[in-house]
């Protein structure tokens, strides 16, 4: 496993802590534009993901990339997460991974 540049689990609110760093987030796709995808984070905030994913996209996507601003990610890896995904659980995971159990995550 490559641990040289870990990607932090984030939701919309946590994104701003990692500007300039590598993050991972699951988003619900709202629409695809040229060169970007507009989506909703697991805590219901709008996020712009820059880059060009391979279509077709499922409802939920995991993106890994660099946090550019507090609502944009430049994505390097796009993964389809299917059409049913429990956002609440993921959102709780983000909170725990950046809070109480931070020490367990690289």
């Amino acid at each position, binding site marked *: 496993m490559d641990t040289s540049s870990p990607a932090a689990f984030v939701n919309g609110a946590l994104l701003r802590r990692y500007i300039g760093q590598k993050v991972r987030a699951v988003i619900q796709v709202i629409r695809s534009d040229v060169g970007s995808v507009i989506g909703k984070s697991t805590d219901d905030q709008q996020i712009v993901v820059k880059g060009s994913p391979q279509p077709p996209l499922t409802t939920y996507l995991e993106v890994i990339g660099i946090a550019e601003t507090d609502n944009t990610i430049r994505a390097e890896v796009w993964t389809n997460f299917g059409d049913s995904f*429990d956002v*609440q*659980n993921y959102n*709780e995971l983000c909170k725990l991974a950046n809070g109480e159990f931070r020490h367990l995550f690289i």
Partner: protein
Amino acid sequence: MPVSLTPNAITAIHDGDVNLKPLLQVLEIKMIGRSQERSQERYRFLISDGVSAQHAMVAVQLNDRVKSGQFEKGSIVQLIDYICSDVKGRKLIVVLNMETIVQQSETIGNPTIFGETDTEAQKTFSGTGNIPPPNRVVFNEPMVQHSVNRAPPRGVNIQNQANNTPSFRPSVQPSYQPPASYRNHGPIMKNEAPARVIPIAALNPYQGRWAIKARVTAKGDIRRYNNAKGDGKVFSFDLLDYDGGEIRVTCFNALVDRFYDVTEVGKVYLISKGSLKPAQKNFNHLKNEWEIFLESTSTVELCPDEDGSIPKQQFSFRPISDIENAENNTILDVIGVVTSVNPSVPILRKNGMETHRRILNLKDESGKAVEVTLWGEFCNRDGRQLEEMVDSAFHPVLAIKAGKVSDFSGKSVGTISSTQLFINPDFPEAHKLRTWFDYGGKDTASFSISRDTMPGGVSRNEIRKNVSQIKEEGLGRSDKPDWITVKATISFIKTDSFCYTACPLMIGDKQCNKKVTRSGTNRWLCDRCNQESDECDYRYLLQVQIQDHTGLTWITAFQETGEEIMGCPAKKLYAMKYELEKEEEFAEIVRDRLFHQYMLKLKIKEESYGDEQRVKMTVVKVDKVNYTSESKYMLDLLVR
């Protein structure tokens, strides 16, 4: 400290003075043996006022204080609550409450036994009169008396009973008048004086004359029965008195005609004469071990001058969170806000009679909610009223007196014939709930203790264990099997014998499934059916090793669960292995079934094989892991 005894106290008590609160000296303490029918011991004191001495029975609720040495020979005590009753023409003092004033003292004066010796009377009385200790908290509130098994609400003035001593108010006793004074004019004289009103708590079967003043809190319908003695009818009603004593009154046949129309719920009556019999605890949930059976000489008279000193109803509300741990069939009182009411549905009872059922939901400040099942008349009368209220977006407070706990699916509360419902009742508990609900309680999520599913799809009744806990906690060792759920991975499946030859014959609408053996004629013989068949069925009898992060264990899976684990019928696997001899393919299928994680519901029971004890674990349900609900479950464990 020189203390003088109350002069002439014994005589005064004999004359019926119950407000004297005399100082008396204990001359003798004797434990009267346990009687045969009730293993309750009693103490008899010889008490003296310095001139006369008299035996007095000590109520059983004081037994602990006698045992702990609070009263001893020579102690000077103050009688606080006591009665003097007639037992077969003799006077007998029963002490309900007393306090020690001086622990030790020389015998004061030279007392002689009052009147003649009471040995006869004592004999009949020994081991009698169990006065149940009232065990409750009394609110200083005029109309409704509550006892609540939880922290008292703020702002309510509580006269807290630190111990379990009865809460007879010592100073004034408005409901009990001293009796008409009368004297013994000789043995043949009939006692014409009206019986003295005593607390319900002091009733016992050994009093000839008594009267109680009490409010009817509930009244049953007339029930007709038919038994070996013929037809009959019966009805009963429940009483509550000033001191919170409660008792059920039952009457049969001609007495039903006489008393049914007389008694009315909410009114106060003077009731006299009748026999006391042990309460039928399965029908009678009142806190009294006796029940009154009215007789032809009994009287039930309306008290027109009642002043509201007797509470209308006595509740001991339990928070809904308590019901979760209450035993099945417990009778209890509960109060909550009605959050939803389902329509009334007709239900066919086991005896073929049709009745109605309506389910509603109740929640309270404990953060829990419970399903309440209304049966029969409650559905239409109260149920409809509640439904209309909830339909018009109003959530009424509902108090349930004497509901029965059921553990059918989770825990729920159902009505029984003596249940009473109070919609938006006017008492502090209800007002408090109303305030709670209107200012936030309405929007707080309550956890239902009734349905057996939790949010996240985890069954509420399911007891989650890990593999090592099975052994550590000695599951299966008690009388009943333990039912638990483990999340585990299958790590090995025994394949040398994975199924058995089963009898395919039908017994009624079920397949026999007993093991069959090859008979001489190459057919399959079943010992149970005593028949042969050409074909046999193959059913799983699978030994599976499972493991989780704590350890591993062996479990047994039968047909249905076996098929779930193997993913195909036993017959197919058997044919593959033994008839087609496709060993490779068979091994591939088995390998493919390994290292899958399941939610396994297990039945665990220790059984003996010969003289060997073995804990047997059988899979009763195999479920795929639902990752969403499992994540929720684990998140819940983390934040707890």
